[in-house]
């Protein structure tokens, strides 16, 4: 067994409850005792509906927000205990691609400068070297280097997502959190960007945490999948195993709700149960865990 690249243990993130009186101390657990690990080179899918805590989990792992408790280890190192200086170094290894290619790029910066910014912040090379690196990155994500002097608004959604990806790759990370990277894109462009993500994974030996609500995409590209519901992991396993033998009632409901592109198989759905229960995860078959 290889050591995990990323190991998340008992992660908890609480926020002040919405609508609660100030200082009343009421809290809501957005992430509730979540544990999983991701192997080097793997694409690990984290799925769930809006509000399930999947995005919060991704941000806690990168320490973009501070978890309430729990442990995140990257190559065995405790990320949450890292000093400011050490965290800066770790950030070169761990990057993120955001969902919305419209709001995640500064509209007043030229896209070349956007991609170069991480290199400037981390003082990588001189100007000429950085420029060469940016040109290389543009080529890597399938954009014309001549586009560097243009502004984000001049690009389509798919192209903007490529720019976001180039920025994420600038520091040669080994781990990328892709938070709904294609959900804002047109269907015909989604596959292009996913193919790019997979090509890059192969060439640059990347490991992905792929956060998504669209199970159809997850099925296509992830090696393993974890299903989140109301802040908890309810099922985790190999993609094929999850899709063929979903065990948790919520996973079953989620799978049955996917609209099937076949008019002869209409409306055969399972309603999600009122309560997911709080059973701990147990292994139902080899490598396949469910909270039942």
């Amino acid at each position: 067994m290889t050591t995990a690249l990323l190991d998340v243990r008992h992660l908890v993130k609480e926020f002040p409850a919405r609508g609660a009186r100030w200082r009343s101390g009421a809290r809501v657990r957005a992430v509730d005792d979540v544990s999983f690990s991701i192997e080097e080179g793997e694409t690990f899918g984290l799925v769930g509906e809006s509000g399930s805590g999947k995005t919060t989990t991704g941000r806690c792992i990168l320490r973009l927000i501070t978890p309430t408790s729990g442990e995140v280890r990257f190559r065995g190192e405790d990320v949450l205990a890292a000093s400011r200086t050490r965290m800066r170094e770790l950030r070169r290894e761990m990057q993120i691609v955001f969902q919305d290619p419209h709001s995640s790029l500064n509209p007043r910066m030229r896209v070349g400068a956007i991609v170069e910014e991480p290199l400037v912040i981390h003082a990588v090379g001189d100007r000429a070297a950085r420029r060469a690196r940016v040109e290389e990155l543009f080529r890597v994500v399938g954009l014309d280097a001549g586009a560097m002097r243009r502004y984000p608004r001049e690009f389509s959604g798919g192209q903007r997502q490529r720019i976001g990806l180039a920025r994420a790759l600038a520091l040669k990370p080994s781990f990328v959190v892709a938070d709904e990277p294609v959900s804002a894109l047109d269907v015909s462009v989604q596959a292009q960007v996913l193919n790019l993500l997979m090509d890059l994974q192969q060439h640059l030996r990347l490991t992905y945490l792929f956060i998504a609500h669209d199970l159809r995409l997850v099925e296509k590209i992830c090696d393993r999948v974890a299903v989140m519901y109301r802040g908890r992991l309810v099922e985790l396993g190999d993609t094929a195993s999850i899709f063929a033998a979903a065990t948790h009632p919520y996973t079953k409901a989620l799978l049955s709700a996917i609209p099937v592109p076949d008019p002869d198989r209409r409306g055969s759905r399972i309603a999600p149960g009122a309560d997911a229960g709080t059973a701990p995860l147990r292994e139902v078959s080899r490598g396949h865990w469910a909270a039942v």
Partner: protein
Amino acid sequence: MRAVDDVSFTIRPGETVSLVGESGCGKSVTALSVMRLVQPPGRIMAGRITFDGRNLLGVSERAMRAVRGARIALIFQEPTSALNPVFRVGDQVAETLVVHRQASGRQAHARAIELLEAVRIREPATVARAYPHQLSGGMRQRVLIAMALACRPSLVIADEPTTALDVTIQAEILDLLREMKAEYQLALLLITHDLGVVAEIADRVLVMYAGRIVEAAAVRTIFAAAAHPYTRALLASVRGRAEGRHLPAIEGVVPDMSALPPGCAFAPRCPSRIPPCHVEAPGEIALAAGNSVRCHLYSPDASAAGPAPHPSVGPESRFGAEPVDFGRGDR
């Protein structure tokens, strides 16, 4: 710029027609045109929209107001922005009835609660007193459906009604739309980019690309024997599995509507393009009853390079009388 170009289709009473396409293809503009809600400087340049035997492009604005919301209702994609945040949802549902049915406030309010109940909202009286922000996305969409049904319209246009919703909620809303269709004998024009949604609910499908309808067919025909290369590519990207870690993708980008290529707008991305595609825009070619395509591969003089002839499909399912006709809606 032509956002919608020479679009013709009909919807029969009780029928669900799905208008499929990607962002910017003109599907929403088509819907707004039917309602005569295209915002200036946009305008309808030419065409005819026949509803119940009357050309809607010829009637007065006053007459149009009596149609809008009462005879033809619209459900928007964003339930959040379609509701007024400062009014209780019950009052917003009631407002439609006060405007169109001259109902008294009390009558309208009682009817609003019935409508909320009809769209399967539990505790409708409580929900009626809520403000939009207090409701979930799915609940808000139910409220919008209740509003749309308030005056018993004969046609509902739903623009991406489930796109902003989670997949389980989306399934519930599709179920609800199906039930409402049967109960109210609605004709439904459903605009979506999701072929999964189309398969769930449509009787007939219109595929739109760059402002034109490139394929029209019964839902089963689309899924079993799509003719247009764009439709096929869309289906492949929905159904396709990674082959050696590669997903079937449509190369290139959606064209800029203000700088369309000559010939067929899909040609630059089309895997089956032939020389005429870059020269002349293909006309509509009938393949079978109710099944047409705009593609040179199917023109009689296309060379043997074209694909195998389209399998003919059986006669379309029976529809009621009095078709709603949206003729030649250029803009």
